[in-house]
């Protein structure tokens, strides 16, 4: 991290940490701690969750809406086979017991006793179940609060994250845009530099060459239909080939392009004469293609006269759209 601004020889950790934090703020925007997220969720979450209208005092509100309920005390009775005849007075109890057979002559009390006994048991069971449910209520509510709270917290966190990501996307798009602009400027600068050395007045290409170019460009794909820079149409001085086919040390602009064209011509096999109707008067290779190879004219390419042929060929294949006729 070379961009730390530490001026003195002695390190001050607090100062460095301040710089690091400033850098983080600059790079990543605001960074929240867990506590800050909780605070945001508790206080300002409507900022992030406005669409749903979630209230910041949601949990309190929820609790208020469902106050704790005290389980009601429900009366019940005990009913067994002796209940109907029970009394605290012993003589009466004895008398009832004595007269029970007489009573049974009139109706049968047993089903009634049984039904009431079962009902009593059902009441007890129901009361117990309700009590259990009520006892579980606060725990369940607590769980609900917790789930809801966590959901709110997570939603807030996501909101913050989305916000940060949006900021990053914006930042990246602006960088991308800048880079694109920069690339365009550089491209135009490259083309401009390639044309710069041409101090001579532009020579008109021979009419046959122009015709050939127009005819061929109609048959080419769209990429090849770009207007080619004029300087390549001019006839530069003939290259002084070194013995053994090696190019001379000082090559002029356009010489390498011509060599490439020659090589392609050999591969393509067609004679330039058949295409353009004859060689140029000075006997040099005519600049048959007006398709100036942009990358071939790049200053870097010119400085490096020994660019690998294969690289050149692949470049030219892309740009010129295939082999071009050789003049030889």
């Amino acid at each position: 991290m070379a961009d730390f601004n530490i001026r003195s020889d002695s390190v001050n950790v607090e100062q460095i940490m301040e710089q690091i934090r400033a850098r983080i703020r600059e790079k990543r925007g605001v960074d929240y701690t867990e506590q800050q997220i909780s605070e945001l969720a508790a206080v300002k979450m409507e900022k992030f969750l406005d669409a749903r209208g979630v209230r910041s005092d949601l949990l309190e509100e929820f609790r208020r809406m469902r106050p704790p309920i005290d389980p009601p005390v429900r009366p019940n009775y005990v009913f067994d086979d002796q209940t109907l005849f029970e009394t605290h007075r012993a003589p009466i109890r004895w008398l009832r017991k004595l007269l029970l057979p007489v009573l049974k002559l009139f109706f049968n009390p047993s089903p009634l006793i049984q039904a009431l006994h079962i009902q009593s048991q059902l009441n007890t069971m129901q009361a117990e179940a309700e009590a259990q449910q009520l006892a579980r209520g606060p725990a369940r509510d607590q769980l609900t609060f917790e789930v809801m709270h966590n959901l709110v917290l997570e939603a807030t966190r996501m909101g913050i994250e989305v916000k940060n990501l949006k900021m990053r996307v914006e930042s990246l798009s602006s960088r991308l845009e800048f880079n694109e602009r920069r690339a365009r400027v550089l491209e135009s600068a490259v083309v401009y530099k390639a044309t710069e050395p041409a101090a001579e007045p532009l020579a008109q290409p021979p009419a046959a060459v122009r015709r050939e170019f127009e005819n061929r460009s109609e048959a080419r794909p769209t990429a090849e239909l770009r207007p080619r820079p004029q300087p390549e149409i001019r006839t530069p001085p003939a290259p002084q080939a070194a013995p053994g086919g090696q190019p001379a040390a000082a090559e002029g602009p356009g010489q390498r392009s011509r060599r490439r064209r020659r090589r392609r011509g050999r591969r393509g096999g067609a004679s330039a004469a058949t295409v353009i109707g004859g060689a140029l008067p000075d006997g040099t290779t005519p600049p048959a293609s007006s398709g100036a190879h942009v990358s071939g004219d790049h200053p870097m390419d010119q400085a490096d006269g020994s660019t690998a042929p294969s690289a050149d060929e692949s470049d030219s294949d892309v740009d010129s759209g295939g082999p071009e006729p050789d003049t030889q």
Partner: protein
Amino acid sequence: MKLAIVVQRYGAAINGGAELHARYIAEHLARHADVEVLTTCATDYVTWRNELAAGVESVNGVSVRRFKVKHQRDPREFGKRSDRVFTERHSLADELDWLDAEGPTSPALIEYLAKHGESYDYCFFFSYRYYHAFHGTRAVPGRAILVPTAERDSAVGLHLFPPVFRGVRALMYNSHEERAMIHAVSGNQDVPGVIVGVGSDVPQNPQAGRFRQKHNIRGPFAIYVGRIDQNKGCPELFDFFQRYAKEPAGRLSLVLVGHSLLPVPEHPRIRHLGFLNDADKFDAMAAADLLIMPSYFESLSMVALEAWALGKPVLANAKCEVLRGQCIRSNAGLYYERYSEFAETLHAIEHNRWLSGSLGRNGRQYFQNNYDWRVIERKYLDMLAQLQARPATHAMEPLPGRADRRREDLAPADDVLERLPKAADQDRRRA
């Protein structure tokens, strides 16, 4: 002069922070006085199971007297009691039960101290939070010197301990932050105390190349040395480091040294080497670009001091006041609180060689000025001389009666801890 070192566990193979601290101090004070270590038969700090024989033995030339632990720790019971005293209103009896559940409960050790305490001029008690320190200081209050090794955790908020902090003859603190915290919790400013810490026997020429060759480690790396444990902040470290490893600029690997109680993530840039002996450990630290200390609770990080002694920068967890304070005081380490800071500080140390070198140099200087053994020994001896020259002016407050102990009027320890001021900044300004 005869000194006793009273500590929960003791042995050449025991590498816990406070226990190692006690051993180093015992071995170094043995050059100046007759030192005997009083400890338990336990080696495992989770169960306190009796694993060593009771009686007297010699460890590295220091006499060690061991006592049986009465019962092992029941983790469930201890957890229940911890919840009670940390989070609910409770009584002093509850806290005493908590102390008993925590262990190592060794009444034999306390009994021995009560009977033979007078045969020692001074007794150094290590780790305030354990049974031996609480009851031991009460058994020999006039001779008790406490090395609290206190961290900012819930135990410091218990009501058992302030009378101990006020009642001992002196305290040997590990850091400014620890002293400020104990002052705040107990108001024991009038008790003699000095910030000492502990030294370390760092080799002069550790072999970084040997370590790299032995473990086939190439490239720059950060190292973590210590128990790989939840309490040490390792899960957070793993999380942060894996996120850092995804960033294109970060080239560091992470090397972990120590026993693991957690699963270590499978990651091509995380290497776990397990426990290493001291020579290998120092070689590893010398080979590392920096040491990372992710722990939330430390009273003094010996590993950080060792890294500084070797001229390595430290990246510490800022949530630990002590580590943060040490980084600031030494100007030898950076600290992080969240991932963004972790990544940026790591990048800073990794890419800025000048910064890394300066932090390392400062660390070496800080270690020499404060934690060289000559400095540590001198501080201990000066304190003993000071205590001999001055009679005790305060006594240990007795425990309340039975009825008072049962009164449930004590605030939860967590609440007490919450109210404690974070004194690092004030103390730093004062320093």
